[in-house]
């Protein structure tokens, strides 16, 4: 049994890191908005999905225009990412302006319902556009950097097996890490980052310190949504096919990751995402082996959520969250 686990370990780590990186960047979008507005932006999963669709659409456009062969792959990749980030970022700002700002002084529950409404709206809007233009909502595009690599871990000795991955897997992990490091630096080092943290801490006082609160909130939505959209492109390139419902399950898992890490904490979201991705992949590859076939890989989500519940029982603020005293 142990040798089985060891044999699949390198593969599980690679796949878990890939999925975890996607969860982590999406989780950051949840945590940023929560930190600043104490609102769970349930539409964020759909922003991620929209990013995947925009990326795929631009890709198909390049393909039909014959530009894909004419430009180097990295340039196409960057153009697609930039287009998706810009559009999803603006979408995020627009959603905040239309669906959340008018409700900012209303009870929290009202904004939450508004968020769920936006999420359904986006799902069906994308499905409508996709079906109208292609006749099917399941859209496939060609992918860049598609060649397969093999990590010869087995040469290290022991009973470790080889790991297989695509070049795009490496790109996905590297880009996700760059996005996360960039965001961390932005929030910690720049003027706007400091303003964001100030608004998160105390909106009224920040406003008194001549910070334009509305602008900062709009910026937060732009950054969070652009990150989600960029992840969507990475996801679409990794799996080749997108549908309007990919944001739903993935959004819930990324939200879970944010809660696990401590919602409101950016580093917590990164850790939570990677952790959930790893646990999920480990469980789906090994649960059957561990329980000698009684519980198969289909229980992977139960496994991940059980860990979440245990963590929340002992540390309700999440692993990296700060316990906030209720203001009286």
């Amino acid at each position: 049994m142990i040798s089985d686990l060891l044999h699949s370990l390198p593969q599980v780590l690679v796949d878990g890191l890939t999925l975890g990186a996607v969860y982590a960047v999406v989780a950051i979008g949840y945590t940023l908005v929560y930190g600043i507005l104490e609102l769970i932006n349930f539409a964020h999963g759909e922003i991620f999905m929209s990013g995947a669709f925009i990326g795929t659409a631009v890709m198909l456009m390049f393909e039909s225009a014959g530009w894909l062969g004419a430009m180097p792959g990295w340039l196409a990749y960057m153009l697609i990412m930039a287009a998706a980030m810009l559009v999803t970022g603006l979408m995020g700002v627009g959603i905040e302006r239309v669906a959340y700002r008018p409700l900012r002084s209303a009870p929290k529950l009202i904004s939450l319902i508004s968020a769920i409404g936006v999420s359904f709206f986006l799902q069906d809007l994308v499905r409508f556009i996709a079906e109208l233009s292609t006749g099917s909502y399941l859209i496939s595009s060609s992918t860049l950097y598609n060649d397969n690599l093999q990590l010869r871990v087995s040469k290290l000795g022991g009973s470790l097996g080889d790991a297989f991955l695509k070049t795009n897997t490496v790109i996905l992990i590297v880009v996700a890490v760059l996005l996360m490091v960039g965001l961390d630096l932005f929030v910690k080092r720049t003027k706007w980052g400091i303003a964001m943290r100030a608004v998160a801490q105390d909106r009224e006082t920040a406003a008194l310190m001549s910070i334009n609160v509305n602008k900062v909130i709009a910026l937060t939505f732009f950054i969070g949504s652009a990150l989600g959209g960029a992840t969507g492109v990475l996801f679409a390139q990794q799996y080749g096919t997108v549908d309007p419902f990919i944001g739903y399950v993935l959004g819930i898992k990324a939200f879970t990751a944010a809660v696990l890490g401590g919602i409101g904490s950016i580093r917590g979201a990164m850790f939570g995402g990677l952790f959930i991705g790893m646990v999920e992949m480990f469980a789906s590859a090994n649960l059957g082996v561990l329980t000698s076939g009684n519980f198969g890989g289909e229980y992977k989500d139960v496994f991940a959520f059980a860990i979440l519940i245990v963590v929340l029982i002992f540390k309700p603020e999440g692993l990296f969250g700060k316990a906030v005293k209720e203001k009286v």
Partner: protein
Amino acid sequence: MGMKKVWIASMAVMLAAGLLAACGNNGGSDKKIIKIASQSPLSGGSSVQGEAIKLGAQMALEERKAEFEKLGFDLQFTPYDDQADPKKGVANAETIAADKQIMAIVGHMNSGVAIPSSVVYDKYGIPMVSPSNTATEVTDRKLKVVNRIVARDDFQGPAAAQYAVNTVGAKNIFVIQDKTAYGQGLADAFKSEAEKLGATIAGYEAITIGEKDFNGVITQILSKKPDFIFFGGLYAEAGQIVKQARDKGVTAPIMGGDGIDTAGMVEVAGDKVVGTLYTSVSTDITKTDAGKAWADAYKQKFGKNVDGYSAYAYDCMNLILNALKEAIEANDGDLPTREQVRDQVRATKDFEGMATKVTFDDKGDNAYAKVFVYEFKAASYPGSLISEVSK
């Protein structure tokens, strides 16, 4: 406004003319009219297949018009559009029941429409022969009027297992399913038959519908090293599994059921689809010379290529007409009752059709129904017919 009135008026005139013409026909001919109806979706998403069923049936009927003329009957074809909607199917069934000249029905295309509609047929004793219903419930209710000439859903899994074990020689099989009634049912049927045939099941795993990353399951496949993989589920997940498995260097053949018998499978899996196997209840009619000639005649007559169920509908109609003829003969050349035709249809034995041979059992299932195995030899749909499995 003016246009609308003109439109309505012209429609009214046309309707009146049509009625008059119909009356004239009735009065002028002394031959007794026998009508055979078809019920299939002629509009909506599956209208291509539904139209094929109508045309296949129409072709058979027109070929044999003269034969019935000699017996003193005027054979007519009345197609109905069930819109793939159970409500519409039942409403049509009531209309058909009220038209006493209709003796039998070719259809339906969808099991979900056939099941409620056949209750009405049963009440009035009108036999139906379906060219495409596969759901087990269609005939398991043991209605005297319901017959089908294709295989049942619960034969597909075992047939796939027979192909995997007996033809491919699989000994160590990994089974994946998607936790839906269809996927799990198919995978379970495959698994128990494969075990009965002496293969070991290396693993039995489930995936979640709607997800895109199945690397966990594929890692298991990598460590179990099976020589055959069966997936019970639909093309969106099957396509990803095939793609991700090939990316990871899994070379074992992957097989699925009719859930991946669609162009969508090729779209999702791309070039990696090559070598993937699937089962289907319909044959490739152009494989035989006779079938090829028939397909050409069909094309010439209707200007359309044959679809999967065209030949099956053709067989259904011929089978019905044979039964009708026997019922007429048994009735000393007089018009038989619907019940006589119904019993004669059920009594069909060793009927040699274009697509399939038919003998009905006591439930109305075809004892000669086969499951056909296809392979994607190139990244294009449909795949090539490579084998067939009979009961």
